[in-house]
């Protein structure tokens, strides 16, 4: 879409036309009976010679830079590359490089697992003949991506990184809650605190007393809704009432804390899905479709800063030269 702006380049004709020299028409042919004609004013003729060439150059450059800024060109400056998902072992990367034969390839560390999104956005930066190798725990896309370049994918499923999550428990059945969180499997480790802090992700309220006004958390599990009468009228899904309040989102159910494994799993998975997000699968070793007509990704913006500065400088120069010329 941006490249359509290149069609605006003919606008450069305008200053070229405006800078043509004006010359008064002085060649007049004698006509004896001209006295019978009404006098006409001298006509200003424009001749194909230019005045103020420096100013003309500045204006043309200014317009060309503006068009380039709008068109946001992306120069294909990247050659053969290996794209490495964070957390991939260097030994695996080296082995894949040797296998594929891309020893001279430039290594690019991706910001996250979503390698195909990054590639789609930056694909115009790659040379058309560039070979790409994608290594690591690449997130599996929903559909097979269509790309301009052939990409070799060498996936390596890696264990999810261990993480620590803080849960604050207020109330009587602390041991029950502790058992519930201890029974959870996975790399996440849940730390139960007596008081809510800045990094508290879940607050469990299991007491009839009203919470202090300043207490806030992203999610509240309310086992005893005595202090929250508004929850009685809140919408519910499968007996779980939910309500968004200034202190955070409230979940409340009569069966909290869950008494059986199935209820605990449903509660935990719902929490994880809605608040922590899902973890994508590792993409299988499949080759993305190569399609020369695939749409390039959104703007590259690689040259936008340089072009902006050039635009500013040219504009200032143009104004100054115009001002000097008028004086």
């Amino acid at each position, binding site marked *: 879409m941006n490249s359509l702006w290149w069609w605006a380049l003919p606008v450069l004709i305008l200053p070229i036309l405006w800078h043509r020299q004006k010359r008064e028409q002085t060649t007049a042919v004698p006509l004896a009976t*001209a006295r019978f004609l009404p006098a006409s004013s001298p006509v200003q003729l424009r001749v194909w010679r230019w005045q103020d060439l420096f100013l003309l150059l500045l204006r043309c450059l200014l317009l060309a830079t503006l068009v380039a800024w709008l068109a946001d060109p992306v120069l294909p400056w990247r050659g053969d590359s290996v794209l490495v998902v964070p957390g991939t072992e260097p030994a695996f990367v080296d082995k894949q490089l040797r296998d594929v034969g891309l020893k001279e390839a430039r290594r690019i560390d991706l910001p996250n697992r979503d390698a195909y999104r990054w590639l789609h956005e930056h694909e115009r930066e790659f040379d058309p003949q560039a070979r790409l190798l994608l290594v690591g725990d690449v997130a599996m896309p929903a559909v097979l991506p269509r790309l301009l370049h052939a990409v070799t994918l060498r996936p390596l499923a890696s264990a999810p990184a261990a993480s620590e999550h803080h849960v604050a428990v207020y109330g009587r059945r602390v041991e029950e809650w502790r058992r519930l969180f201890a029974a959870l499997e996975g790399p996440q480790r849940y730390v139960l605190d007596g008081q809510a802090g800045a990094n508290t992700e879940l607050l469990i309220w299991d007491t009839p007393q009203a919470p202090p006004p300043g207490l806030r958390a992203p999610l509240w599990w309310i086992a005893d809704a005595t202090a929250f009468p508004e929850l009685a009228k809140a919408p519910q899904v499968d007996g779980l009432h939910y309500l968004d309040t200034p202190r955070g989102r409230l979940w409340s159910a009569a069966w909290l804390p869950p008494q059986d494994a199935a209820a605990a799993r449903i509660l935990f998975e719902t929490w994880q899905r809605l608040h922590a997000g899902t973890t994508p699968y590792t993409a299988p070793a499949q080759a993305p479709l190569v399609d020369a007509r695939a749409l390039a990704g959104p703007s590259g913006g690689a040259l936008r800063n340089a072009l902006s500065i050039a635009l500013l400088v040219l504009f200032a120069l143009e104004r100054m030269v115009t001002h000097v010329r008028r004086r």
Partner: protein
Amino acid sequence: MSVLASAALAAHTGKLDLAIRHVLAGLGHGIHAGRERGAGVEFSEYRAYAPGDEWRRVDWKLMARADRYSGRAAARDSHVAVWLVLDATASMLEPSRSVEGLDKLGMARLLLGCAGAIAQRQGDAFGLLICQDERAHFTPAARGPRQLQRVLAQLDRVDAAGTLPAGEVLRASLHFARAPSVICVASDFLDWPSPLSEAMLRLRGMRHDVRALCLQTEAEIAADFDTATAWRDPEGDNRLFRFGREARAGYARRRDEHFDMVARQCRAHDIPYVAAPIERAPGETLRAWLRKPGGRP
């Protein structure tokens, strides 16, 4: 010979006397009724032969004796003097837009030369007055082939420039007007009233036979000029004029008004006025110009 070819031929003939001879050959004799007929009624004197003299007037016996050509000059006073008045102002340089090399001055020169030649043939005295660049060049009236040579040389030399002389200058030059004269004025009459027109009316008032020839071009008559070109008045300042579509009607109207006024004034003063395009064959124009007023066409 077609009309155009004749005008073009006149334009392209470098020698004025050749062109005059060509025109007069087509015209024949008898344009103007001379008061006396014959080359010489009464012998007056011998004089040296001059180019243009008729061979039959050479005295061959004298040539045999003196070894040089001598002619018998007839003492024959015509009562009519012919004055050729040429307007050689800058506007007379107006060229024909259809015939290459033809302009008003060239045609006026040729027609006046023809008038002079006719006068010389008929034995009339003739003189020349050239109005050019605010001055009047005066050649006194005389008779004979030498005078014709002189007049033709003057006509050949003249170059159009400037504007008409002032009224006083012209009046001083026209002091001849005592004997009855025929005064042939060739001009474009774009300036009217002008010192020239005043002089013509005054001479007519003194009962001279004044004949006005107004030279025009076909492009002027048809009001057909290039619209892209900028024009200027050769006798005016450096103002520019354009020939747009809307200017054309105004041009034709103003031009017609002007020449209607000129013709009306000439008629009122009984001056034969002939307006002729320079592209017309010079013989026809000459015939129209010099024919007897009210006589056969």
